[in-house]
Structure formats: C-alpha cells, structure tokens
C-alpha cells in the first residue's frame, strides 16, 4: 500500500445519505478477476444514461469536477455489500479521501466499507452533519473549489474565494499509522506466526 501523503484537489459532493456499495459499483462490474479497471464503473447507474452516454446532470460529469480527488456525501456512506470493488472504484476514479457526515446517532460510514478503505489507503474522514452541510453550501457557491487533506495534521482545508476554511477530524491511531507508513497488514501479522501456531496448539 502506498503511503498517504498530504494532497490538494478538487472537492466533489454527491448530496445523498445511505449511498450503498451497489450504487458505488453496480454488480455487472464485479465479474473481473483483476484489481484494476474499476474507475469507469464508479456510480455507473447514475453517471451514464441507458445508451452509455454521460448523464450531464450527475455531478461528477460536470467539467469543473473532472479531476476531483475528495468525495463528500451525507451519512451511512458505503452501506450494503462488502464488495471491495466499491473502494477500488472510488480510488481508481481518482479520489484519495472521502468526507461523510455523522448525523446524531447515525454514523458517517458503514463498518465493512470503512475497513475496506483502510486496507487500500483511501482515507475516510468523518465530520459532523453541520460541517458537511457547510461544505455542500461552499460547493454550491464555488463548484470546483479545492481542498487540502492532511492526515498528519488531521485537517481538511477548503480554499474558498473568501479564504481558507479548516476542519479538523479524528483518526483512529492504528489506522492513521498504517496509512501514513503504507504498512502491509499481512506482512505485519505474519510476524506473529508463532503466536498463531501456539493458539492452534492449545485448541
């Protein structure tokens, strides 16, 4: 896994709650046995018309969103199927971070999706619903606005015409360390082979 480095990129907002992994990548794109080639399938039911042409009304098809690197949505993002293809599609489209909203008791991300993101170096940022609402307001006023995401500082800085707006976010220390150092989980776990063998011997 590549190390997560601070970046600045265009922010795109898909203004919906409960965006499920079937929406992120519909099933007809799950038949590949490869780990690549999923970027064009991201949001395909929404992004393309039935004849395969681009749906001009879908936010990612707007010209100012062409190089978007930060994806913003409402709560419970990534619910549903465990398909990691959804994460591969988000990354291979060009996104490096997702921002979603915690809305009271309702979490920003579904568990399996958030886990899958962590395994692939896609940063999942959780902000409050008020903060995410504010970001959608900014995106409405300034489509194509850029933001800088720093995992070291745990900040998202949106570079608006009136100046920078900074949001800080929490990060799980274990995951943060993994992302910043690009650690390979399996290699790390295999260091505990003796513990695993000892556990098996006890059974």
């Amino acid at each position, binding site marked *: 896994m590549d190390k997560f480095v601070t970046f600045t990129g265009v922010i795109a907002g898909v203004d*919906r*709650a*409960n965006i*499920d992994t*079937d*929406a992120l990548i*519909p*099933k*007809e794109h*799950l*038949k*590949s*046995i*490869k*780990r690549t080639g999923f970027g064009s399938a991201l949001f395909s*039911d929404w992004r393309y018309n*039935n004849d395969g042409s681009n749906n001009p009304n879908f936010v990612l098809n707007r010209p100012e969103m062409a190089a978007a690197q930060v994806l913003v949505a409402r*709560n*419970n993002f990534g*619910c*549903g*199927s*465990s*398909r*990691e*293809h959804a*994460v591969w599609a988000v990354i291979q489209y060009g996104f490096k971070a997702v921002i979603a909203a915690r809305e009271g*008791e*309702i*979490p920003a*991300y*579904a*568990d*399996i999706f958030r*886990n*899958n993101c962590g*395994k*692939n170096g896609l940063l999942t940022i959780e902000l409050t619903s008020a903060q995410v609402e504010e970001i959608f307001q900014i995106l409405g006023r300034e489509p194509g606005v850029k933001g800088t995401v720093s995992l070291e500082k745990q900040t998202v800085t949106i570079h608006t015409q009136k100046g920078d707006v900074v949001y800080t976010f929490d990060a799980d*220390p*274990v995951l943060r360390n993994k992302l910043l150092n690009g650690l390979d*989980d*399996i290699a790390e*776990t*295999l260091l*505990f*082979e003796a*513990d*695993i063998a000892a*556990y*098996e011997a006890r059974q």
Partner: protein
Amino acid sequence: MRATENPTFVGLMKKTLFDKIWDAHVVKDLGNGEVLLYIDRHLVHEVTSPQAFEGLRLAGRPVRSPERTFATMDHNVPTDENRMNISDPIAKAQVDALTENCSTTRVTLFPLGDDRQGVIHIIGPEQGIVLPGMTVVCGDSHTATHGAFGSIAFGIGTSEVEHVLATQTMRQTKPKNYRVEFTGKLQRGVTAKDMVLKLIGMIGTAGGTGCAFEFCGEAIRALSMEGRLTICNMAIEGGARAGLVAPDQITFDYIAKGSRSYAPKGEALEKSIKEWKKLYSDEDAVFDHSITIDVSTLAPQVTWGTSPGMVTDVTGVVPALDAVPEYSPAGVRAALDYMGLEPGVKMTDIRIETVFIGSCTNGRLEDLREAAQMIKGKKVAAGVRMLVVPGSEAVRHAAEKENLDRIFLDAGAEWRFAGCSMCLAMNADKLRDKERCASTSNRNFEGRQGKGGRTHLVSPAMAAAAAVAGHFVDIREEI
C-alpha cells in the same frame, strides 16, 4: 450454579455470548483496542476471492489452513438448465479462476454441478461446516447468517479475505454488544423475515453500525433454525456486521439431523453439545444498546423504498415525506421517485410484475414450503412472472422430493437450479427498467435487481400470495 469448568468460554466477569466467543479466539492483543482474532471457518465464493488469491500468488504466500476454508460458486452462476455452459465469458473466467485457485491451494470446493453447491450461506449450515462457538468469515456481507448457530460470523472485503487465507486470523477491534429481544408470539402468516424487517424499520440501516446484535427472547426461541438464519442474515441491513442467537436444543437437533458431512457425530457430537450449552450471555451481562420488540401484533412487512429500513405493515400506506424518522424528506422523495410511488398509496394496492423467491435470506426448504403452501392449486396472476430459485442443490432435491417443484410449476412459476440469482442480478436473472418485484431477498437498493428495477422486500409466503393476486395482500386473512 453454572459451572466454570471451561475457562475458554466462562470467566469471572459477566459476559455476553459475543464476548465469550470473541475472548476464546483472541490470539494476541495488538494494543490500541486491536486484537488478532483466530478464524475457524473461511467461506469463499467466486466474486470476492480472485484478487485475494492473486495477491497471495504475487507475494509467494500459501493458504495457511486450506482445511478450514470452503468454497463454492453462487453469485454469478446461471440458474437455468444451461447453467453448466456459462455463456458470459467474464463470468465464466471468474468461475474458472475459483476452480483453479481451489485446486492449487487444496481448498475444498463445491463446484457447479455438485449436489452440495449452492449459495454459500445456505450450504455452510447445511453441510455442518459452521457450528456453535466458531468464528466464521466470508467475503460477503450476509455472512452474519451463520451467527444463528451461536457463532461470530461477519462479512469482510477482499483484502481481508487475502489476510485470512494467509494467516487464518484477522486484525479486529471488538464491536459493541446490542441486545435485540423479541417478545410475544407471532400470528399465523407472520415470519422471521417480518421480525427483522420491523427491527430495521425501527433502528434504521445504520442503527447497528459498530455493533453485534444478539437476538433473544421467546419469539427467537420459538423459531426454527431456518427462521433464525433469516434474522441473522439481515443483521447487516441494520448496520451490524454480526448477529447471533444463543444455541439451544433446536440448534443441536438441526446439527444432528441429516447428512451434515462436516459436523461431529455420535459421541463427538454429544461432547460438543456439552460445550455448546455454555454459549449464552450471562444473566447480568452488560449490553451497550438494547431494544425490545413485541411481535404479538406484528403484521407482515413490505418495503416501499430503496433502503431496507423503508418498510411498513402490509395494512399500511406509503408514508408522508416527513413521517419517516430515519430518513430525510429529500431521501424519502428520491426513493419514491425511483419506486414510482406517492405518499398515501395503500400497500395492498401496489401491483407487482415479478416475484423472486430465493436468496441466502429466504432460499431454504422451509421458505419454499411456506411459499408453496400459499400458491398450491392456484395460478400466478396474468402478466406476472415468478422465479423460484432454491438456495442450494440440496434444498432443490429436498423440495423436489416433496413435490414442491410441481406446485410451483403447476401455478405457472419457473423452477430453477441453485444460486444467488435475482437477489443481486449478477447473472441473467434481472429486472427491467421500472419493473416491480416482490422479492424474498435482502436489499431493495436502487438497481440492486437490475438497473431501474423496483424491489419490495417481503417474506416467502407474502411473495407467493402477491404472485397469485398480482398485488400485495395481507396473508393473515388468507390462512
């Protein structure tokens, strides 16, 4: 006095069932709340595994415990008579990849054409692969199904599949405990499916995020294993990665009967049952969340939107935009636009064009019996197509032995071979744009059963009754 003779499962602290199984599987504490958790059973299918096997190959790593790993093809396989000749070359490549991967790594495979093939979450219990007290994972979110045995079972992504293949462990932080108690006695015609849909309607599809559900109470105790499997199956639709039920005599009888090739037999089974009887939540165990639902007045449930939590009684109506606490008015509006519905429409006035009976949620023999009972001697309404897809080849054979296939065929339904089929529509079984379906599956997301398709989730008996009437009916009035 409850004995503490087995330190593996019983300690001094009051523990939940989940905690007991979890603690018994911790290989190592990794700090910061993360543990290395041992995995007893790893179930594998063709869609989420090829990249994992490829990862192992590239890194030169073997499958650590092939004897704990079981595979089948279910998601993309055709369910018609030509199923052995997969015409979609990409789907065929995926099926072939699983065959090749299992053969080179010595993983047990139940291939297409084998009598033990079927939806992975149907065959795990059926073959006795999953047993109480185990940890079970699979690259599929409906893995929670297996929690019905009193095991910790959850869905994982492909990176985690690779991790489990390589290490037989997972790096995990412990979820919270969420107690879901169902009290009272179900009315005739109301099923496990209705119970779990009701729960999701109450707590929303993120209500259980970060948690494991323990389903308990007299209404759970009264359920067959099939019913418990249905409820645990949809834990993920309530946001919880895992859902479990403490094992009891119903569990033990299920494991003892039939030809569950991988389950212990005779004396070994007796010994195991003695251990499994220790699998329950201690009386004063503390849960982080809890909810109690009285099922005695529960009506059959029907979803009206594009999220499993968008659900109401069959006697109800499509709600007003601002009358659904777990969803915003804009979210409800978008769902209704997609579904082609308006607030105030009576659920029993909604006409359907297709009926799908099957899936890991409701593709077991009991489900097919309930559906068959509703449709016996009747005909599928004009203009309605009905697909009945057994969850496994074993279910298909058992159903045919009881002539259930005849009942469905005589009514005008299609009788298929085993597979996931129209639950996720990866094969040829899918809805057309705007086609409306009564489905016994688990997800009514946009496009789930085919782009533009409109899904209403219901129980098998409700689906069968809708096939006959052409619209939803309150089956309590029919039986």
